[in-house]
């Protein structure tokens, strides 16, 4: 995470996400998948194929692509279908876009009710016998049972969570890095899924995105760094108010 300053001198915290060897693996049509839209299987980060079973090698052999650590699905409209085997780059996103980021949260192990659910516990003194971080009562008398889904101690973290509506401030095309506003679930160097935001406020935010994606062997030549309009670039002199 890094600080970033706007032209008016305000500071925002930014997370860096690297797009590492992403390839499209397979196209699944609407009827095949049984959903509302067609799906594209995308794989991330390269990994050695020797630690995986032979059955997992098939998809990658078909697409002609090295073994990937993680495979995710993206719901795609019919006009945005990409041929399996195309690499995906950070330039697929543009500064000023809004994005949802999904990842597995940091695993905390078996945790008690105070840390896991935010219960208040009991006071530290004034006669409490061996009860300081316990849940207290778990149900009423009339119910005569404990409801399903009762908040109790258990394994916390290591589940998929999404942060919605994160602004993209900057894109580095040379190293394939996306600068995303705010924090993102997961530990450092964990695998993360970045997707166009599904929030209704940001529905019409994309003005001329690269559609269906950014092709490296195309005619477009992008500069090394793409900045949002409001960012203070370090090549400018210091900010002064008129």
């Amino acid at each position: 995470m890094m600080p970033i300053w706007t032209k008016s001198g305000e500071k925002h915290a930014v997370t860096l996400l690297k797009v590492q060897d992403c390839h499209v693996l397979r196209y699944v049509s609407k009827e095949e998948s049984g959903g509302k839209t067609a799906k594209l299987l995308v794989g991330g980060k390269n990994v050695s194929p020797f630690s995986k079973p032979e059955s997992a090698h098939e998809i990658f052999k078909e697409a002609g692509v090295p073994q990937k650590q993680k495979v995710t699905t993206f719901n795609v409209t019919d006009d945005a279908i990409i041929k399996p085997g195309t690499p995906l780059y950070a330039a697929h996103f543009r500064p000023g876009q809004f994005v949802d980021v999904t990842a597995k949260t940091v695993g905390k192990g078996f945790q008690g009710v105070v840390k896991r659910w935010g219960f208040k516990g009991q006071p530290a003194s004034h006669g409490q016998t061996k009860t300081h971080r316990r849940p207290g009562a778990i149900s009423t008398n009339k119910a005569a049972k404990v409801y399903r889904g009762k908040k109790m101690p258990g394994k916390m973290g290591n589940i998929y969570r999404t942060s919605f509506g994160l602004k993209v401030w900057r894109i580095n095309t040379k190293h394939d890095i996306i600068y995303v506003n705010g924090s993102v679930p997961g530990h450092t160097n964990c695998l993360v899924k970045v997707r166009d935001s599904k929030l209704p406020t940001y529905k019409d935010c994309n003005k001329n995105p690269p559609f269906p994606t950014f092709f490296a062997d195309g005619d477009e030549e992008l500069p090394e760094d793409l900045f949002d309009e409001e960012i203070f670039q370090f090549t400018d002199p210091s900010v002064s108010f008129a």
Partner: protein
Amino acid sequence: RVSSDGRPPKFQPPPKPVIIDRKTQKEERRFLSPEFIPPRGRTDPLKYYIERKDMIQRRKVFNIPEFYVGHILAVTTADPYASDKSKRFVGICIQRGGKGLGATFVLRNVIEDQGVEICYELYSPRIQAIEVLKLEKRLDENLMYLRDALPEYSTFDVNMKPVPRMDHEEIPVNKLQVRMKPKPWSKRWERPKYNIKGIKFELSEHKMKAAQKWSQPWLEFDMLREYDTSKIEEKIRKELSEELEK
């Protein structure tokens, strides 16, 4: 030559010439700002490389002078609410913290009997000028104890003229021992954890001995805490000098 014994005189080798290499001596003392050194951790070094590129870019446009804790600095920042749209603050640098672009330094001064500390970010675009008024290092790297010292040690004239620097080689170390206000202090500065050499403790010997109870003499031998930055520093210095010359 004829000697007294008739034997040839004992060979005396000529005195070895003492070579004073002025160039290498100058290169030894070069300052690397502490925020360039990446902390120990599992982050990808690519992230530090990219941050360094941004920092170098900022340094090319705006001059950040070399300064240590104990220097007296004057900082002018842009402020939309001030009448002149800019503010100037003079103070002694108490602490330098943070790594990378978020590096900060805290300046302290006593203005009209009120102690004021302001924490500035080195790479913030609001800062318009940093001038070093007086160069002097102190005995410690963290002068937070000035909060509990007598206010005369933290007062500096706001209209101070910059003291001209004589040698380009050495930064003088001020071995000032500061006198403190009566206890209680914000932290127990006499404890060995803070390792402060710049205070003149006027406490009884009994209390100083009692404070040594909290000493942890095994810490300096702990190998897992060692972080040798010499090679990393050399690489970063090379990178910096190459980029700044462009």
